């Protein structure tokens, strides 16, 4: 959690006084929401799919991909184990960046499981989702800027 007034004690004090009447504090982590994490995940997935497309002609290459649902669950913090005692160690339910293997619909004789059309479609949709997150993020930044400037 980073407050906008981090590292400036005088400003901190001012905010403290200010908080009594108004509880305005801008936390960039909260303001940008899940989109920053989504961008990182999308770019990682683009890398995986690019590797699949690069290895279209490599014998015995196994196509890989990542699961969006588990990544989303982990980004939202909903995949924590339930603990009954505060000293219990916390762990994650699944690894958000876990690479899985794609199940081929038409096995190839050279052991390669890349299906070029599927990968291309996945890459295009991933790029679109990346752009969507980018636009939403851009909108949030514009909102923040207008809030800061007070226009």
């Amino acid at each position, binding site marked *: 959690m980073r407050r906008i007034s981090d590292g400036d004690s005088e400003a901190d004090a001012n905010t403290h006084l200010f908080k009594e009447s108004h509880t305005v504090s801008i936390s960039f982590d909260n303001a940008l929401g899940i989109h920053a994490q989504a*961008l*990182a995940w999308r*770019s*990682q997935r*683009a*890398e*995986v799919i*690019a*590797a699949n*497309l*690069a*290895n*279209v*002609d*490599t*014998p015995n*290459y196994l196509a*890989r991909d990542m699961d969006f649902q588990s990544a989303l669950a982990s980004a939202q913090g909903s995949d924590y184990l339930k603990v009954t005692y505060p000293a219990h160690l916390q762990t994650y339910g699944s690894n958000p960046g876990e*690479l899985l293997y794609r199940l081929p619909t038409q096995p190839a004789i050279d052991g390669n499981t890349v299906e*070029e059309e599927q990968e*291309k479609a996945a*890459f*295009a949709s991933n*790029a679109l989702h*990346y*752009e969507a997150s*980018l636009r939403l*993020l*851009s909108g949030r*930044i*514009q909102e923040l*800027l207008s809030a800061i400037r007070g226009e």
Partner: protein
Amino acid sequence: MSLFTVFNTAGSSLHAQTVRLNTTASNLANADSVSSSTTTTYRARHPVFATQLKDGDDAAAGVEVLGIVESQAPLRREYQPNHPLANQEGYVMMPNVNPIDEMADMISASRTYQSNVEVMNTSKQLLLKTLALGE
């Protein structure tokens, strides 16, 4: 930013496909290079592709060319007694290049090259848009 590594991955594939196109060109160019003995005859060449695995980075798997192998398919023998390179029995040895295989290989290489260029272009656009974030 892992979008940058997409360039390395797709670039390695472009290189591999270029090597493949080169061998295809060489095979087609030498499809009629005759010789009088089996040891000196041109044999079809093909690259061997393998996945380039990096330590600690599972996702960025490029392609590398392990080497070029010569086809061990039998050579064609043609009876041409008047050919200057004919052996004592009147035969010349023809390369084991199959032009149909080569054409199919060429099309496959050019398609893969194209799709990797597309991947690079898309990544470039995404990166440029990311750089302009908040403007």
